[in-house]
């Protein structure tokens, strides 16, 4: 049977066909849909883990128990899971263990574009890299086989253009795997005290040698010998770009990017006149080929930043731009269209208030990071998951009284549970005078609304226990904890002023669901708002919210004169307004009013 699948859907399908028993992940673009699809298959235990480290540990436990397990994460998620990763490389597994790392060249939705192929070499773990959805499905199955054959975790690396592109996949039925779960004590293999670890390390070195030998015969490391004038070594989406740009040249298409098939590369280099490594981000292949004493061209002609396309291959190899410069000079200025917080977003009022207070906002990862853009401009740092609290603590300790009343940390509910709890524990323990605002919108909004330990629902939408943030925060040692409704601007402002100026740690929880929240818990639709034209004085106070539903209409000069100096007025787009009533709270003239009924 054939189906059009994304790379992520194909990975889930492949894992299902390979008989995976346990699949874990923390949501992160571009990896999120792997687990969403995994959860739809019968007979697979799937979970949203609180973070990637836990995800990998749970998958490892399942693999130690003899079952096949998969942990999926975005590239920066592997940083979080790196601690168990480097040592499970030593212990090996019993059932197959596959770690999917979804890299994001171009940073479509990420804070950096680190090249996770380096993790394969660093942790001495083999890595496969599929080039489309068919390979994504096939390589997951191969990865489980390799994992069990070589007693190692195996990486499968995708990039955004494999994860989120659709192509045709041939499906098959799932393997019936003999369920042989067994508790088997093997302390010398799984208890990495120094004496045991010293015995495991040489096995790891030998394993890489064995895998190098395997790489030579691995059918997915494929030589396509055509015109010998140019040979190109590539893997993943890069292979597709180069193959499209130069259908006649010779290729060494690598299905496994670590370890490399050294002999095959040497032989290929002898068969072609000029050799290129066509790879996004780091010169990962290039440097290893150069270390073999082989001449190869890579980052001298191809960029180190951003993602590639077929034009990149043409430009690097042929030295042309691929397209004649069309006369873009004649185009008018095109105002940019960045993503914004939705109309009715519960975060908007908070960042409006923080902007007015002119405080330094240590920020975190989530939709609210978008509040760094005008007109809100109220996020001042964003580095990694959970970092906001540490940043606020560091500012507080470094600046002392100069920071008091001037610094806050903001962190979403899912991000707080992922890695904010330890930061807050530090604030309590080391007596930081920080104010931490937990933005509880009842979901992991940015990646498309996934559940987490604070939502009371599992990935399969089964009811489960739900974190009580107030109790949790108090148990960490924070005495001042307040919940507020972020749509009540007056109360919100009062609480913010009081807590930010308090010379001891405090936590504010803004409690209101994401406007896209899916379980119909929002109640009846609210009446939409409109601007009473005769009352609007054109002061633009409401526009400072940056709500997509609020528009500025410039009036023609004759009308401006007739309407007492007013240059224009606010207009509420009825197709975007959801009736959240933030803007009406800002209008001093009472010009923003509720419509009768819901339209």
């Amino acid at each position, binding site marked *: 049977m*054939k189906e*059009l699948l994304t790379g992520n859907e194909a990975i889930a399908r492949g894992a299902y066909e390979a008989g995976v028993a346990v699949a874990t992940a923390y949501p992160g*673009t*571009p990896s999120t849909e792997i687990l969403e699809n995994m959860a739809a298959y019968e007979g697979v235990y799937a979970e949203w883990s609180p973070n990637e480290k836990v995800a990998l540990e749970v998958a490892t436990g399942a693999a130690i128990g003899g079952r096949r397990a998969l942990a999926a994460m975005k590239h920066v998620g592997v940083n979080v899971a790196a601690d168990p990763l480097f040592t499970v490389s030593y212990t090996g597994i019993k059932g197959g263990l596959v770690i999917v790392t979804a890299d994001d060249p171009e940073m*479509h*939705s990420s804070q950096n574009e680190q090249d996770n192929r380096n993790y394969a070499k660093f942790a001495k773990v083999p890595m496969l890299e599929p080039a*489309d959805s068919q390979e994504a499905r096939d390589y997951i199955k191969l990865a489980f086989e390799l994992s069990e054959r070589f007693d190692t975790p195996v990486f499968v690396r995708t990039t*955004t*253009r*494999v994860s*989120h*592109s*659709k*192509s*045709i996949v041939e499906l098959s039925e799932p393997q019936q795997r003999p369920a042989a779960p067994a508790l088997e004590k093997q302390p010398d293999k799984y208890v990495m005290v120094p004496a045991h670890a010293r015995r495991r390390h040489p096995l790891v070195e030998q394993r890489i040698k064995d895998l190098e030998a395997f790489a030579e015969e691995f059918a997915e490391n494929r030589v396509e010998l055509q015109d010998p004038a140019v040979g190109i070594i590539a893997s993943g*989406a890069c292979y*597709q*770009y180069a*193959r*499209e*740009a130069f259908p006649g040249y010779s290729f060494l298409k690598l299905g496994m990017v670590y370890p490399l098939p050294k002999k095959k590369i040497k032989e290929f280099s002898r068969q072609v006149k000029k050799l290129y490594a066509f790879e996004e981000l780091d010169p990962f292949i290039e440097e290893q080929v150069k270390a073999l004493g082989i001449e190869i061209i890579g980052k001298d002609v191809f960029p180190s930043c951003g993602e590639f*396309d*077929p*034009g990149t291959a*043409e430009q690097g190899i042929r030295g042309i731009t*691929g*397209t*004649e410069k*069309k006369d*873009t000079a*004649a*185009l*008018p*200025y*095109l*105002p*940019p*269209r*960045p*993503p*914004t*917080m*939705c109309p009715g977003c519960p975060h908007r009022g908070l960042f409006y208030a923080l902007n007015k207070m002119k405080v330094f906002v240590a920020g975190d990862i989530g*939709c609210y990071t*978008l509040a760094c*853009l*005008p*007109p809100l401009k109220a996020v001042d740092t964003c580095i990694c998951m959970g970092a906001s609290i540490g940043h606020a603590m560091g500012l507080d300790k470094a600046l002392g009284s100069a920071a008091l009343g001037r610094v806050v940390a903001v962190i979403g509910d899912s991000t707080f549970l992922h890695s904010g709890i330890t930061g807050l524990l530090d604030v309590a323990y080391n007596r930081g005078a920080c104010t931490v605002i937990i933005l509880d919108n009842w979901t992991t*909004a*940015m*990646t*498309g609304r996934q559940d987490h330990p604070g939502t009371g629902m599992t990935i399969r939408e089964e009811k489960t226990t739900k974190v009580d943030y107030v109790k949790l925060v108090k148990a960490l040692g924070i005495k001042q904890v307040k919940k507020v409704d972020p749509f009540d601007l007056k109360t919100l402002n009062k609480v913010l002023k009081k807590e930010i100026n308090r010379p001891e740690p405090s936590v504010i929880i803004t409690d209101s669901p994401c406007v896209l929240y899916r379980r119909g818990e929002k109640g009846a639709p609210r009446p939409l708002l409109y601007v009473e034209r005769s009352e609007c004085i054109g002061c*633009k106070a409401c*526009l400072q919210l*940056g709500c*997509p539903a*609020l*528009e*500025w209409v*410039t009036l023609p000069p004759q009308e401006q004169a007739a309407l007492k100096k007013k240059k224009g007025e606010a207009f509420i787009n009825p197709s975007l307004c959801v009736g959240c009533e933030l803007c009406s709270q800002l209008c001093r003239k009472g010009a923003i009013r509720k419509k009768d009924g819901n339209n």
Partner: protein
Amino acid sequence: MATTDRVQNILMVGVGGQGVILAGEIISEVMMRAGYDVKKSEVHGMAQRGGSVSSHVRFGSKVYSPLIKKGDADVLFSFELLESARYLDFMRSDALIMVNSQKVLPPSVTLGVDTYPEQIPEILRARFSRVDIVDALDIAKRAGNARALNVAFLGALSRHFAVDENLWKDVISAMLPAKLVDVNIKAFLLGRKTD
């Protein structure tokens, strides 16, 4: 247009929330069922409501790259006037330019900082000989639901491909929620009849 030798490239662009992604899904499925190799690529992730969205759809006897090379797109299928102007360097000089006449204001325009460029249709007509500006919102409203805009617009595009009408209808029926199928089929057929 539907020749098998050269890969056909459709660049779909618009604003988050307009249904660009679903329209791309429908075309891709139709072309797969019509016997072509198909690749489709886009980026999801960031809270994309209101942001620029683009989707690359490619089909032919064998498709390698999931991305269209700049200067190589055969069709621009743009759901919004301003957005169409952002991607002109992707287009072949003989490309078909299909644009929905709707305007969605970017944030700096709603704030009164920038103005919306009004001369886009003239620019398109000056550069390309095949420009088709369609009021897809109006077609969708006539079909009975403004949100069927994407499928109405797809109806207009479908005239340019030698694919059986029933195939489009089958795929639309399969991919939309049951209660929305009738209105979307109606919108598709109305779009297909526009001139």
